[in-house]
């Protein structure tokens, strides 16, 4: 047995090391999920690479990894800049690694490069998956469909209490130029890392208990550089926000990325300050509407009253004018009538007098006295006027009246006129 060739552990490990070096390329691209990412005080980054079964989610492969400080500084900045996402645990990455085998420390992968676009793709695919699920459940647009009240100044703020962003938010609201009143009530939550999802949901549950006291919810997180957005691409958080009865305004401090939270939220703002500005702009518009309504009431009622006054004035002027005109007209008519009447009566009297005069004259003309004066006589028999020869016969005694006396005669002969000469 002893003669049989055998190796010491170090010899074996060296052979493994050599085999790896000889049979594997110097570096290769590898897809894996990060786990247990940590940095030591020298700035080196140690982590685990894992792969999970797509269905069961159980870990089916695992390897230690390291990113040396000088590489990590460069790669992490590049990665965060490209993805808006910290290089941290729980993300899917595509990294170029060299496979190391050390006699003492064993198998590990040293990262030399990273492809952020793969992670971006993974994030996007993850978001799409969550959004699709929310849509299938019919909740995706529920919060967006809520109507923010006109008077939206009671705000439940979900934030880390110590975040600079929260302070900025409150300052911005308190110092709004219109002197408008805002009520910002903090519901503290962890806004970063693994615990944030559960913490934000717990805060939402608490706001829900007091929902009648608020007009809207602001989920804000202090700005700073790019940071971990993982928790905002969470299905659980998204479905809570989407179905929340108050409009949710997000301002989680990232410029480029639109997380699932942003998509399901009623309104998305980039930063806490932008959320405050949104509320201020909204309330300013509300106040402006009231002021413009007030101006319309004042303008309309003033112009209306002025018009009524003018109307009254011109009516009273018209009244005086018309009534004096009427009086004048009536006076003139009366005067004219009375003149007419005077004239008419006089005329009538004159006419009557004249008529009487004529009659008198006529009567005087035809009176027997006048007739006798003109040479006519009047014959009477036995005191009666004789108008025909038939009343007379011979030997009758007749009386003849003259202008100046009476004679008595005896008729000697009666000779009637021949009938032909009758007139």
């Amino acid at each position: 047995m002893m003669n049989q060739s055998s190796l010491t552990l170090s010899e074996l490990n060296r052979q493994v090391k050599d085999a790896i070096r000889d049979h594997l390329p110097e570096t290769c691209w590898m897809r894996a999920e990060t786990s247990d990412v940590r940095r030591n005080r020298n700035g080196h980054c140690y982590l685990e690479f894992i792969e999970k079964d797509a269905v069961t989610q159980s870990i089916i492969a695992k390897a230690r990894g390291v990113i040396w400080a000088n590489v990590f500084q460069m790669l992490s900045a590049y990665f965060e800049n490209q993805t808006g996402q910290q290089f941290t645990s729980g993300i899917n990455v595509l990294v170029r690694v060299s496979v190391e085998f050390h006699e003492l420390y064993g198998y590990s992968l040293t990262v030399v490069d990273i492809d952020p676009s793969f992670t971006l793709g993974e994030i996007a695919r993850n978001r799409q998956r969550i959004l699709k699920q929310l849509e299938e459940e019919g909740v995706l647009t529920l919060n967006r469909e809520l109507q923010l009240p006109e008077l939206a100044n009671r705000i439940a703020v979900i934030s880390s209490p110590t975040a600079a962003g929260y302070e900025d938010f409150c300052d911005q609201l308190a110092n709004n130029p219109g002197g408008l009143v805002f009520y910002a009530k903090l519901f503290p939550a962890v806004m970063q890392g693994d615990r944030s999802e559960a913490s934000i949901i717990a805060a939402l549950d608490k706001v829900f208990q007091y929902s009648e006291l608020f007009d809207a919810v602001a989920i804000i997180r202090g700005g700073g550089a790019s940071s971990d957005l993982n928790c905002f691409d969470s299905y659980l958080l998204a479905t809570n926000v989407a179905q929340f009865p108050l409009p949710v305004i997000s301002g989680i401090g990232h410029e480029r990325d639109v997380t699932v939270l942003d998509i399901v939220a009623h309104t998305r703002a980039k930063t806490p300050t932008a959320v405050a500005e949104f509320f201020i702009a909204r309330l300013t518009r509300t106040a402006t509407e009231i002021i413009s309504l007030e101006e319309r009431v004042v303008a309309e009622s003033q112009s209306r009253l002025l018009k009524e006054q003018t109307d009254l004035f011109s009516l009273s002027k018209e009244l005086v004018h018309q009534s004096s005109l009427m009086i004048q007209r009536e006076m003139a008519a009366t005067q004219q009538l009375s003149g007419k009447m005077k004239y008419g009566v006089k005329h009538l009297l004159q006419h009557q007098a004249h008529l009487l005069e004529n009659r008198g004259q006529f009567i005087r003309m035809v009176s027997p006295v006048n007739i006798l004066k003109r040479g006519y006589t009047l014959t009477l028999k036995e005191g009666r006027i004789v108008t025909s020869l038939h009343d007379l016969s011979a030997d009758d005694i007749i009386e003849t009246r003259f202008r100046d006396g009476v004679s008595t005669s005896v008729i000697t002969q009666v000779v009637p006129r021949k009938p032909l000469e009758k007139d």
Partner: protein
Amino acid sequence: MKKITYTEAKKELEAIVFAIESGELDVDALTEKVKRASELIAFCKEKLTKTDIELQKILDDIA
């Protein structure tokens, strides 16, 4: 006036403004409406610019 909400007050105010602007009100009705409108405006402005101490206290008391 106490029971009314901001939205209700604003709606009523808008209706009054439309009525006034229609020019169909007589002066007596106009005066009534303007009086009511100024009450509503004061109410809305107070909601916008005066801190509701009672509400503030309730919010502060939420632990």
